[in-house]
């Protein structure tokens, strides 16, 4: 029920929107459900919304277990 993936924050567009990187794509997602986040950090994205913040270390740990992400 909860398809969500960790994606890296590329840019803070404004207080409601972030740009994240997915593959070679830039994607705009809403950050209205999370607090302040920094470029280079990761967010968990569900249906176009960031629902949780993750540090780079935490995201890398999760992503390292997902094939093809290395």
């Amino acid at each position, binding site marked *: *029920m*909860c*398809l*969500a993936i960790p994606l890296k924050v590329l840019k803070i567009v404004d207080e409601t929107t972030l740009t994240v990187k997915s593959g070679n794509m830039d994607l705009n*997602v*809403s950050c*209205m*459900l*999370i*607090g302040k986040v920094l470029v280079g950090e990761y967010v*968990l994205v*569900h*249906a*176009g*919304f960031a*629902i*949780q913040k*993750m540090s780079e270390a*935490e*995201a890398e*740990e*999760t992503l390292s*277990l*997902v*094939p093809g992400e290395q």
Partner: protein
Amino acid sequence: MSDLKKQISSLVDEIQKIVPNNFVMMEVCGTHTMNIAKFGLRSLLPKNIRIVSGPGCPVCVTASSDIQAAIDICKKPNTIVATFGDMVRVPCAGDCLQNYNNVKIIYSPMEALDLAKNNKDKEIVLLAVGFETTAPLTAVVIKEAENRKLTNFSVLCMHKLVPQAIELIMLSQNIKLNGFLLPGHVCAITGSDYFDFIAKHKFSGVVAGFDAVNIMSSIKELVKCFIDSKYGVVNNYPNVVTNEGNLKAQSLVKDVYEPCDSSWRGIGIIKHSGLKIKKEYSKYDALIRFNVQIKEVKDPINCRCGDILKGEALPTDCAYYGKECTPSNPIGPCMVSTEGTCAAFYKYMEE
């Protein structure tokens, strides 16, 4: 052998050493259903572990009467109904949303607001399905609609809550369960404390992530909890899940919704298991805006989706499975939704 395979293999060995006979566990998240099947994990686990799929697929458990309400809205003039992909083929008395050309498939509920902006002569209705992970998103959209003073937008709110369904299952006499795999992204929003109540029913639950290693290690944790009679919740997804969860999202949910009784397909009404839009936001409530009457719709007899959702039967126990009921010709929602138990069984049938 890749590192991943080695890790999985090692976890399987550890599980094999400790798992008791006839260990039955339930996962309650459609994405867990999909991923367990997609990764072929059952083929690796010892035969004495059985993983049963619970009512964690929001499309599966949406009542036929709610789908009918959505279809009734489609039939109204000048409407555009915005919905997630898997809703469009759910069958309802021989009809489905896909039959209507004013249905628009969206990835994010925010797209519904763009539709309202770009189609001022139409009424945009967002079909809000999903559990605690998705409800905050709809809440944001409703508040944004208010900020933007939209007059052509509303939401058909069909959000449901997981704990009440789990409670029903724990109290059921028909199934003997040794523990739950708990939904990691629901917990990202609600916090792992949200499921603490399972301890008083003497159940163990492990909050699990969605990659193969995490799912396997969560299964191992669950077996250990059962053996040690350690009741309550263990958080095996700490990178994403905290005890208290996403407070901002929770606050938005409290602001926009109140709990209500909800009808679950194949199960019936479960008290306080749904979310309803509060009076303050009633102008965005499609039920009120369109004066929709929720009519009772009879589910096909002999369709065992309800029993399957409760973990009381396997897809193969249903007389329709694989014969009259296939993904291209589904009878019940378990076969329609790509994460429904029957569809996953059919498409990703493991050895």
